[in-house]
């Protein structure tokens, strides 16, 4: 063990702000990083050394896919031989079976990033309303207190169900950040149910709305929203997430032509190489899939895993490369900026789509940022503080989200008055989806639970953490960083 490593381990063990499970995760991460990173070509390494291409700190020796998205519907039908569980007969069996399985679903966080389309899973067992409410309350409480990570994501909708309504009502009442939640929305979703979800969202910043038509076109209907807002095939998941930092790429760029014709294609190739090698490592070296009952019992399968090609900092890249300083011309406002941004995205998309990795395929993902980002705006968003008026903001967002099959999201804080008119928010969501927006998150500016960049935190928890207290939620730690680096509390509040 190197001296460095010993110091790192000691630092983790002595950190007063980490709970015991958080300490375990950090120690495992330190161990995973002992081997050298997966070797890259000199060309690719050049981009990695400049933080232009980044492996998201997933670990040098990835021993499981980043996001595992089990087929929970199948699990509910068949139970589990390995876990010695029969298929559930009532609501108590159902929540118990699920909570047991979650312990065995790995991902880059300690627990699962996806806990299922929970209304669909539980609704068949809703017989007595009050009993179901009791069971679902325990279920949600258990997830919040034991998984304790806002990257843990539940899906509901598109149909109006009793379980769905109970979940929405309890979420509004409990006001906890975990699980993160998405409402799959399509033309079959009744306005009444959608408005109930919006009412809940304005209280507790979830659920977000998913443009089902677009994601179904990408993946078929059997996909799920996981982690922040990643869209991935059910029964598989995401192997790795690479991240292209377009702001850092702009730092080494001298002209728009050089970016489009030279540096961008090289950087994209470098990231594809890194992702390909890391994906191959997971499947060929760490043998994750062969060594889990999830595969044996058909809950995941190799050909349902994909790689996520993430990117951040489009706004900074466009402004910097085109030397835009006039607020009317900058990204989110000017025509030239928009055209250049869309050209960059087209180029990335066609190159990534043409790349044939050894396993699966790659899909674009609008990465949400990391807590240490400074001056780099997540995915294709307009920087906080430079947002154009809401109609224009919605239009530019929709235009830039087109190619992001593996998920992208933008979020809109609304004033308190929106609570009295959820139909107004629904009108905006419907319009945004018709314009091609993939994912719509919103919250009320004065709620305690708020959305940081894609995940949820409690404002009151961040205040506690910043004052030196330990917190149950891992995401609080990240949110504390983001509140400073990304000015999330200063996001433009929308009055409608």
């Amino acid at each position: 063990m190197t001296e460095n490593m010993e110091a790192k381990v000691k630092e983790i063990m002595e950190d007063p702000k980490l709970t015991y499970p958080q300490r375990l995760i950090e120690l495992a991460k330190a161990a995973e990083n002992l081997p050298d990173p997966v070797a890259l070509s000199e060309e690719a390494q050049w981009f990695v050394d400049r933080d232009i291409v980044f492996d998201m700190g997933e670990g040098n020796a990835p021993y499981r896919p980043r996001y595992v998205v089990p087929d929970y519907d199948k699990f509910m039908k068949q139970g589990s031989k390995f876990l010695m569980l029969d298929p559930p007969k009532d609501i108590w069996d159902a929540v118990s079976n699920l909570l047991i399985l979650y312990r065995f679903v790995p991902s880059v966080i300690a627990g699962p990033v996806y806990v299922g389309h929970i209304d669909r899973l539980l609704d068949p067992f809703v017989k007595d309303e009050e009993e179901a409410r009791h069971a679902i309350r325990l279920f949600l409480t258990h997830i919040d207190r034991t998984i304790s990570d806002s990257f843990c994501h539940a899906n509901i909708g598109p149909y109006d169900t009793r379980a769905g309504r109970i979940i929405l009502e309890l979420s509004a009442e409990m006001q906890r950040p975990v699980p993160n939640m998405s409402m799959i929305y399509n033309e079959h979703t009744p306005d009444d149910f959608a408005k109930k979800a919006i009412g809940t969202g304005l209280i507790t910043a979830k659920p977000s709305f998913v443009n089902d038509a677009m994601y179904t076109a990408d993946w078929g209907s059997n996909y799920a929203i996981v982690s922040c807002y990643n869209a991935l095939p059910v029964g598989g998941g995401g192997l790795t997430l690479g991240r292209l930092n377009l702001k850092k790429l702009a730092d080494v760029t001298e002209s728009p032509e050089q970016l489009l014709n030279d540096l961008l294609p090289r950087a994209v190739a470098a990231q594809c190489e890194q992702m390909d090698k890391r994906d191959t490592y997971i499947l060929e070296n760490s043998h994750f899939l062969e060594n889990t009952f999830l595969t044996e019992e058909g809950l995941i399968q190799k050909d349902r895993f994909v790689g996520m090609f993430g990117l951040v900092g489009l706004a900074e890249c466009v402004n910097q490369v085109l030397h835009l300083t006039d607020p009317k011309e900058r990204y989110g406002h000017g025509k030239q900026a928009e055209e250049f941004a869309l050209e960059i995205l087209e180029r990335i998309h066609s190159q990534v789509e043409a790349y044939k990795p050894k396993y699966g395929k790659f899909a674009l993902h609008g990465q949400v940022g990391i807590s240490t980002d400074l001056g780099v705006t997540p995915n294709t968003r307009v920087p906080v503080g430079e947002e154009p008026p809401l109609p224009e903001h919605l239009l530019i967002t929709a235009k830039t989200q087109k190619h992001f099959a593996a998920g992208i999201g933008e979020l809109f804080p609304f004033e308190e008055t929106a609570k009295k008119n959820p139909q107004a928010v629904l009108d905006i969501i419907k319009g945004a989806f018709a314009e091609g927006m993939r994912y719509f998150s919103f919250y009320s500016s004065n709620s305690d639970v708020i959305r940081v960049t894609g995940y949820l935190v409690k404002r009151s928890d961040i205040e506690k953490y910043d004052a030196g207290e330990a917190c149950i939620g891992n995401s609080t730690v990240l949110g504390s960083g983001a509140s400073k680096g990304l000015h999330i509390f200063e996001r433009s509040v929308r009055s409608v």
Partner: protein
Amino acid sequence: MCKYGLVNRIIPFSCVDGPGNRSAVFFQGCEFRCAYCHNPETQNLCTSCGVCVSQCPTKALTMGDKGVLWNSELCCSCDQCLNVCPSHSSPKARWMSVDDIFQELQGALPFITGITISGGECTQYHQFAAKLFDRAHELGKTAFCDTNGQLPFREMPELTAVMDMAMLDVKAWNDERHRELTGKSNRIVLDNLNYLSEIGKLYEVRTVIVPGLLNNEETVEQVSRHLAHYPEIRYKLIKYRPWGVRPPLEVQPPSDQYMEQLRTLACENGANEVVLT
């Protein structure tokens, strides 16, 4: 002058001017002189006196041949021009055609369910408004009037036929009090209340609650008795707030408790849906 309307401002998204998300178009000019008017700069037309021109910190206002000119590019929206205007007007109001208005709303159209015209008093431009609403309907949007009922809808058949719904202020039930507050009788307002209710074009009645200035209980009670026959019409009770009121009133906003009392009073008298704001 039915090809153009004098527009004070346009708000692309509003969730407080009718159902769903709506664009709100505020017209310039009103016959009422309410003591609690929140946007007195919408009351009169500009007299081109030029007082505001010298007060503008960014030189966005200049005196042209036909009156004060406003350069929106230079404007910093400090509202100094409104504060110094001796005649409760605005140099920023623009004569706009139906095309002009929808051109400005183009970006908002995918996200709204309809438009609402307000003011000032929107019915001052009722012929123009009818044309504006025709276009809204062509675009699949609903069309609402936010009105204080100073002009009789019976005598504005084009607008009444084409509008989907109206939202009507009933500021005071007692005519004497109404005259004190607004400078005008409420006879036409109450006739509009009856008429719009009967023809099924009243979405909402609104009353601003001002303790110490108005007989709030009387108005709430009487309006509620009327609404008892029309359960589909909701009643919105609005707290008086001092923002924008010039000169300031020597009254306090009502307490939440008082608003709740009035809600109870309205419900007891038969109003089906009562909203506080």
